[in-house]
């Protein structure tokens, strides 16, 4: 578990827009954290607190305003497809390609030799239990199956790091429970470093080795909680006293932040309205 550091985040802040712009948002403030190989870190926090922003900075999709990110010992300056794979919240499969073609295309982009792709695509689809649906188009799959396909695509890239932004966020409770269990089994067999954004307390405790709780905007990591339980975690873990205690601890940490975030956004809404009226008269 406590292997070498795979992701090193140091004093990262991110602002959207220019300093003097009315739409200027300080999304992320002085955040530092390390993720070890083989570790699954969950990010949890009020919506809009910068979890996706942090994930995108780590993935090289956003350049941090200040601070540094290192992945596999190298500074991140842009997408690093050889080291980092993504599973997004929205359906990010190409609708005009079959499931199989989607997986193949990821490897084509990444630069996997042609001869290897076929085999790797089959294996990763097998691993997520989607082998029979290889020739289906995304529109023909359920939401849960689509996210399995997206996971297969990410796994086929065989990266050391996997970033998942609320991958099961749009799914119903039962589906996400099953997917969570399957994911835990899958991940117990790899030594990937995984950062997993979720808004579900249960999901965080069930999947994570550590849970980073965010404060309200400008977001930063307020506290990190360890979940000392080996993978794969079996469904009984959910009903254990340990699970409940951790879940309650997360709940009380989050509760205050969510209240803060809500009252702040209400105030911002008012300010924003005045701003636009002034803009109209100018």
């Amino acid at each position, binding site marked *: 578990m406590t292997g070498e550091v795979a992701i090193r985040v140091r004093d990262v802040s991110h602002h959207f827009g220019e300093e003097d712009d009315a739409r200027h948002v300080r999304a992320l403030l002085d955040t530092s954290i390390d993720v070890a190989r083989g570790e699954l870190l969950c990010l949890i926090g009020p919506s809009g607190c910068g979890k996706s922003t942090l994930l995108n900075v780590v993935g090289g999709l956003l350049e941090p305003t200040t601070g540094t990110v290192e992945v596999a010992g190298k500074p991140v300056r842009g997408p690093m497809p050889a080291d*980092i794979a993504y599973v997004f919240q929205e359906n990010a499969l190409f609708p005009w390609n079959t499931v199989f073609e989607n997986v193949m295309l990821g490897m084509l982009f990444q630069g996997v030799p042609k001869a290897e792709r076929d085999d790797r695509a089959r294996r990763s689809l097998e691993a997520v239990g989607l082998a029979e649906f290889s020739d289906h188009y995304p529109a023909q799959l359920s939401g849960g199956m689509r996210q399995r396909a997206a996971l297969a695509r990410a796994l086929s890239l065989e990266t050391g790091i996997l970033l998942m932004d609320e991958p099961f966020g749009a799914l119903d409770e039962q589906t996400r429970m099953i997917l969570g269990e399957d994911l835990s089994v899958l991940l117990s067999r790899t030594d990937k470093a995984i950062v997993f954004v979720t808004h579900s307390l249960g999901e965080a405790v069930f999947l994570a080795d550590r849970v980073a709780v965010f404060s309200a905007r400008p977001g930063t990591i307020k506290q990190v909680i360890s979940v000392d339980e080996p993978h794969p975690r079996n469904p009984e873990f959910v009903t254990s006293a340990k699970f409940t205690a951790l879940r309650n601890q997360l709940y009380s940490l989050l509760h205050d932040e969510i209240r803060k975030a809500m009252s702040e956004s209400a105030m911002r809404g008012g300010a924003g309205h005045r701003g636009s009226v002034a803009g109209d008269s100018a």
Partner: protein
Amino acid sequence: MRRWPAIKRYMLRHPGVARLGVVIVLFVIWEIAARWFIDPLFMSPPSSVLVSLPQMFEISGVPGALRITFWELAVAFAMSVAIGLAVGLAVGLQPFSRRSFMPIVLLLYGTPQVTILPLFILFFGIGPASKIAFGVSHGIFPIIVTIVAGVQNLKPILLTSAKSMGANRWQAFRYVIFPHMIPSFFTGMRLGMTGVLLGVLLAELYVSTAGIGYFTTLFTQNFEPDNLLGLIATLAAMAIILNELVRRAENHFARWRD
């Protein structure tokens, strides 16, 4: 009496049969009208148009004229697609260029080009060049407009995801932008085809020394409706075939949207 429901069911399952029926009825009405009610100087029945079709092709210059017109259509269409695609992508892919240049495109699209047809003749002469240019001026705008609309509604997450997996610019175009815009590209091509037909034929009819415009004028002035209608039918057949080709290709590429 008992057989009606069966026929109805059959028709519902085969809309093509009803369509064919309507076409046949129209031809029968035309035949009857032309035979007994309309001055034969102005209108021929379809049967005699059909019979005299081979003989129309014998008239010296007609096959050449058809070839020239078909060639004009093909070149104008190819140019419209190439230029329309390039301009559409250049304008559509960047919000800045879209906001700057799209109003110009829409303004030109909305202007009836017929008003400046004489200018085309002036600049490009009375040969095929002016017909092609005028055809392009009609074909290019629907293609640009549909391509701009097509690339605009691409979900950004798809490009982001491709980039995160290491896609370079060419791959992002080839595997994300291009397949996404194929449906609108084909819609644009069909509209563009209609525009090209309109533009080329208008220019042909306006002034022509060798194309079919020359012969339509000739047949009209000599009161030869057999030949005139034969020529028009041939043109219509060309248009139908070209449209059908585009439609076939479209169905082939759009099979993922079930």
